[in-house]
């Protein structure tokens, strides 16, 4: 794809070559850990000399196959994830030596039981709450157990120094990506939501995040040098997209927004800014505890209560001068869909903004219906402006 920014092309290339690089790394003896969720602590996996890679689950293709062993009333992300594994069509899954799952939602924990029959699947158990000390203690012990496991599995000791090194690397990348995301706060956002999404995807798939960081820094310079002066008339509605994860293949709502002339300036979901939400403490005597602390604060609705998400969205609304919030729940994704009524009240009543809750799946059968709803929503925002 041609881009107005050269470094963005390089980033796309990093994403496109992720699989090749992964195969090379594996040939050179690195072990690959497949992950599905941003609760999986990549820093610890890397400190063990392994490579974490995000696995497929964003396309509709393998869903019919998955439905032979999973109920149809299950979110498409879980069905797709399982379907890819069961049909052996996810090249990253094929490269993975094991899967690190996590007990976020009901659907996933039960799916991992089935996935374990295909490939060894270790589960990180999350507490249901991030607000208590006992929740943190529980989670910290899970991190310690994961460390022990990785040491046994690789036969390599994980030193605090190595964990610290990885934390500091990941913080650096996170900060750069966060800054790139932040450019969408400008009156004329230099990057579209889809472009942002692709940058985030490169980050979750490449075995070489350092080279990503190099081009991400270059991208920042490029966009800054071409920043247009403000003319004060930001005509296209500035939208925050939140809810269930979205990625290439499951980005129909994002595409519709852009086709309809809106700017998705902030992608709040796990595949977007939420994953960069954390800056892990580097001054902690126990870096594993620092990891545990920060990861547990991920604003995921599997936590109850989930004040972090509401605070995060409130901050983003202010920073990105959001005019409307689109909250996407995948069908049968209970954590997000149940939380939507609370979010709706906050956005409408406390922030006085337009809010739209969409519930859909990976198919295209409702695309036109979604288009009509989004169109009406955007018109409403423009009328209010």
């Amino acid at each position, binding site marked *: 794809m041609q881009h107005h920014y050269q470094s963005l092309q390089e980033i796309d290339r990093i994403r496109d070559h992720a699989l090749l690089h992964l195969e090379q790394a594996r040939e050179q003896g690195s072990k690959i850990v497949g992950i599905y969720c941003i609760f999986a602590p990549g820093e610890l996996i890397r400190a063990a000399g392994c490579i974490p890679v995000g696995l497929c689950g964003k396309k509709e293709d393998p869903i019919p196959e998955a439905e032979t062993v999973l109920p149809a009333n299950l979110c498409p992300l879980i069905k797709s994830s399982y379907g890819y594994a069961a049909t052996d069509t996810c090249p990253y899954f094929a490269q993975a030596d094991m899967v690190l799952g996590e007990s976020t939602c*009901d659907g996933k924990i*039960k799916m991992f*039981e*089935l996935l374990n029959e295909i490939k060894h699947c270790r589960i990180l158990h999350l507490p249901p709450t991030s607000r*208590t000390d006992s929740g943190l203690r*529980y989670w910290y012990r899970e991190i310690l157990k994961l460390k022990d496991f990785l040491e046994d599995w690789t036969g390599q000791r994980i030193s605090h120094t190595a964990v610290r090194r990885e934390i500091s690397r990941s913080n650096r990348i996170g900060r750069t990506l966060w800054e790139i995301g932040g450019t969408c706060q400008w009156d004329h956002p230099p990057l579209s939501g889809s472009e942002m999404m692709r940058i985030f995807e490169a980050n979750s798939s490449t075995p070489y995040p350092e080279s990503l960081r190099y081009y991400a820094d270059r991208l920042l310079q490029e966009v800054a040098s071409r920043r247009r002066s403000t003319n004060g008339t930001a005509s296209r509605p500035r939208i925050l997209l939140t809810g269930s994860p979205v990625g290439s293949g499951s980005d129909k709502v994002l595409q519709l927004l852009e086709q309809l002339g809106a700017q998705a300036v902030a992608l709040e979901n796990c595949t977007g800014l939420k994953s960069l939400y954390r800056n892990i403490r580097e001054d902690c005597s126990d870096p594993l505890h620092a990891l545990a602390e920060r990861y547990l604060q991920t604003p995921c609705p599997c936590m*109850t209560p989930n004040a972090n998400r509401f605070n995060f969205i409130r901050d983003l609304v202010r920073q990105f001068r959001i005019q409307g919030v689109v909250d996407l729940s995948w069908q*049968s994704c*209970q954590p997000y869909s149940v939380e939507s009524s609370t979010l709706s009240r906050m956005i409408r009543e406390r922030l006085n903004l337009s809010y739209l809750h969409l519930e859909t799946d990976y198919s295209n059968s409702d695309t036109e219906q979604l288009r009509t709803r989004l169109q009406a929503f955007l018109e409403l925002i423009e009328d209010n402006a």
Partner: protein
Amino acid sequence: MSDENRRMWSELGLNLRAHDQLLSVLSNAYQDIYLSQQNRPESTSYFDDVMSEIHGQRIQELMREKQQGRKIVGSYCVFVPEEIVQAANATLVGLCSGADFAEEEVEKYLPRNTCSLIKSSLGFKLGRVCPFLEGSDMIVGENTCDGKKKFYETLSDLVPNMYVMDLPQMKSQQGRQMLRSEFYRFLEAMQDLTGFQVDATALRNGIRMVNEKRKAIHRLQSLRTADPAPISGLDALLANQIFLYEDPRRFAREVHKICDELEQRIERGEGVFPANAPRILVSGCPMAVPNWKVPHIVESAGAVIVGEESCVGERGNRNTTEEEGESLEELMEAVVDRYFGIDCAIFTPNPDRTEHILDMAKRYRADGVIHYGLQFCQPYLMESFGVEKSLEDKGIPVLRLETDYSQEDSGQLQTRVEAFLELLK
């Protein structure tokens, strides 16, 4: 309806008109489903009494307890340790969640794709028709499944006295430790609520009382292994349902009386259905009053339900709590052990549940198993595939049903159940 009851409901803030409608629907359903049964044991008239006064006499009793300084604690789940509630000088009651109510209102708070049980819990609150809930001094939620976990956030905005308990999702040492620390936190909360300091004696008494009612229901269940079965599955389900809010002492006493009668029946070789009636084990999601839909269909089709692998059934009530501990700490450990054994589908992996189903199928001499899943209940629906496979590997036929609280699919369910029973013959 006595004026006294109406006054009480009104004081509790119930919506009297809606409540009248609810009671009339309930009473009609009970007539049609329960009183129409043939050959019921005489002593089951206890159930008729309890059901006719479900929101009357029992609530009067609870209100009297409150006047005498006891507290009432409402719960939605069998993970809430009744022993600790009793020990702290309070009474635990299960809250209403077995029928659709105020559906339009509910959909303003919860997505349509939520299981009937959760929607019902909210419906009874929004419609103000559950006197147990309105009379509770504390409502205990528990972080089991996603739907409930998020629902309690909504409910806590609607009631002033919500308490939420965390649960682990794994049967490991660390999981047990979490349950233990949550039970200690709950003990503190109960003591704060009642102002009563729980010591070893109080907890032991609480354990004994709850064990007594469990032993009564265990006895009832064991009598259902007889062929022909001496009691219908519907009546046994009702015993399990009222287990959750009846006065525990009276419950134990009356259920033992029923058991005495059942023993005589067994001696005479007398069953509630003909000896060749197919024997069915029901496994899966809980059925709260008045959710009698599937058992009614099954037994109307000529089969007899001999066991319930369910929270409102053996999953919820099996195992007593060890009473022998000397100190409060030892007794607390026993309480934790007992509840940590519950094989709810929120645990991963959950092989104990499959083992339990296989064991029950054998013990109750079931000819087939019906897996009862509520629509959108992911934990049980997802487990149902594995359960089906394990049972069929052992040659036990399985029918997986997925339904909700509406009656719309009754005809369809009936056809499927009848076809399944045909297969068993």
